[in-house]
């Protein structure tokens, strides 16, 4: 059944892009995303972004682009197999593996060995690009959000005393909190209370009493939205009146559903929000949202905008390289500077990570609203 589904998807893509294969002058780009399995929903969002970008720019250097999709079945081993298949059998000159850092890490491993440039749109784990000169990403890495939020707290909110509530079971939470603390203290702020919890804890009364007693004006809690919803409710019940701040895991409508009025005013960093106020600041984002709505008749998600950017990033690099040589494309990618992407201008740093602005959103009347853009 799974196999059939996979074959069907593959056939569908052959029909969509197959016609182009008839022409001699095609250049192949590979996509390995989860089309089946636990992450299938994410894989689908990725595809929407690639397809939209492909329709806008179907040619590069006078050749037609052909996208070849292979399902990695939400499986780490398959993720590596899918990329090798794209490289060895399909002879692609560039690969995209976006959804899930756990898929992008093994996929990147394979592409790097083969010397084929790979771009991940959404994988935020620092390990994805580390030590792999052929692997790049279109999103910022997790710890960067901690830095952004710290600067925003100190500079924009004018808060000098902040507290941390960290999930010690999640690398994500620990990473963000460490960078938040480091930046906030460098700026001259003070972390007055630094307490911890574990994923799935339900009672936070002791930690919150501690935080309230420390007179913190803001609480930074980068964690899973379910836990954070409970923290937000209990914090208000216990009388915490300061600001709630977090990372992109909180940019999830379920958080508002769970925490209700306790979530009001919460500010978190993220990649993108479909809000007029943000679109006005970036014509590329405005264009993306317009095209996306025309094609899919729905509001776009951050995942799609990042895969949309990945495709454009790759095409831009091929154009600047002026050749289809993977090594030349890699060098062009590494030299990317101020590329006007829909998700904010991208500069690639020496590791291969995107240096780009973060978007801050705030919960107002039960909805995420654009708050600010913080440049790196």
């Amino acid at each position, binding site marked *: 059944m799974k196999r059939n589904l996979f074959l069907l998807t593959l056939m569908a893509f052959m029909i969509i892009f197959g016609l182009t294969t008839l022409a001699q002058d095609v250049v192949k780009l590979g996509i390995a995303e989860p089309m089946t399995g636990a992450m299938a929903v994410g894989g689908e969002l990725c595809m929407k972004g690639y397809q939209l970008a492909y329709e806008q720019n179907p040619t590069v250097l006078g050749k037609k682009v052909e996208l070849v999709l292979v399902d990695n079945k939400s499986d780490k081993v398959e993720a590596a197999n899918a990329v090798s298949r794209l490289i060895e059998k399909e002879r692609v000159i560039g690969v995209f593996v976006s959804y899930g850092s756990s898929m992008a890490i093994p996929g990147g491993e394979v592409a790097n060995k083969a010397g084929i440039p790979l771009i991940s749109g959404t994988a935020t784990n620092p390990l994805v690009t580390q030590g792999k000169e052929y692997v790049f990403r279109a999103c910022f890495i997790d710890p960067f959000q901690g830095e952004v939020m710290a600067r925003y707290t100190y500079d924009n909110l004018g808060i000098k005393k902040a507290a941390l509530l960290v999930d010690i079971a999640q690398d994500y939470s620990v990473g963000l909190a460490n960078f938040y603390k480091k930046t906030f203290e460098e700026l001259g702020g003070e972390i007055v209370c630094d*307490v911890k919890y574990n994923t799935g804890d339900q009672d936070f009364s002791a930690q919150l009493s501690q935080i309230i007693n420390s007179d913190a004006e803001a609480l930074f809690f980068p964690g899973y939205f*379910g836990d954070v919803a409970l923290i937000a*409710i209990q914090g208000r019940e216990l009388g915490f009146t300061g600001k709630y701040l977090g990372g992109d895991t909180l940019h999830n409508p379920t958080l508002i559903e769970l925490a*209700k009025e306790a979530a009001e005013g919460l500010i978190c960093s993220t990649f993108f929000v479909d809000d007029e106020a943000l679109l006005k600041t970036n014509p590329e984002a405005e264009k993306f949202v317009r095209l996306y709505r025309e094609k899919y008749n729905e509001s776009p998600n951050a995942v799609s905008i990042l895969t949309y950017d990945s495709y454009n990033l790759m095409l831009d690099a091929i154009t600047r390289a002026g050749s289809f040589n993977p090594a030349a494309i890699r060098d062009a990618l590494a030299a990317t500077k101020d590329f006007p992407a829909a998700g904010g201008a991208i500069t690639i740093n020496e590791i291969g990570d995107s240096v780009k602005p973060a978007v801050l959103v705030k919960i107002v009347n039960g909805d995420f609203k654009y708050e600010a853009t913080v440049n790196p």
Partner: protein
Amino acid sequence: MSLNLILQNLANGLSLGSLYALISIGYTMVYGILRLINFAHGEIFMLAPYFLYYGVLIFHLPWWASFLVAILLTAVTGIVSERVAYRPLREAPRISVLISAIGVSYFLQNLAIVVFSGIPKSFHRPNFFKTIFQFGEIRIQSTLIASVIVSTIFLIILIYIIYKTKTGLAMRSISVDIETSRLMGVNVNRTISFTFAIGSALAAVGGILWGLRFPQIYPLMGMMPGLKAFIAAVVGGIGNVPGAMLGGFLLGMVEILYVAFLPALSGYRDAFVFSILILILLFRPEGILGKKVQEKV
């Protein structure tokens, strides 16, 4: 540490402890009668708020009515689980029943994931349960008052049933010797079903109060409270009803005070609680209120 903070933390501890107490009473009762550690207790606990959630959402019952329906349905689930998974193993070695209980626990968890989905749901709170009472700087949730009152009432009812009624007499005789009880004319199956019904109903009340205190429900929500209640029961002396209640309050208090006095180590709160279990098992396996039982040869 300021006096206010200490008082606030004592209130926090009491609030958490009262919930543990309620869950561990059911745990300890089933153990006291059947010598069975019902590891599925935490899952029974999780089902009650879901029943309540859907009672209000789908059938539009007033909350007090769905409260009763949820408790009833949970009690039935308890009886059915005993019927299906424990009764056929009554003559088998005790370890088989224990393994069966773990099986029931995982079965219910996964069933809940399939039926209710794994995404947490917001638990509706009637306005009364959102109220916060403020004494100076100390803030107390109304659920604390509710859970202290409810657990005390249930404790009294339970002690009355166990020591003053015929069914209670049957329960106590079964806990000593099933075969002899049967010969004396005790309807063993019915008594055991009744025990499970009460135990599960207690878990249901605990689960609902838990949901009112921490208004978020998800299929794995019973795991940790279940384990903590088990520890509370062991601390109090497993099989001993007032002991379980005492154990619950103590455990809640210890957890909160641990975080309050060692905030830097607050992430290791569960590890600390489990080490208490190990220490109790090493140095006082019969618990605080438990009696030393000599195995007769």
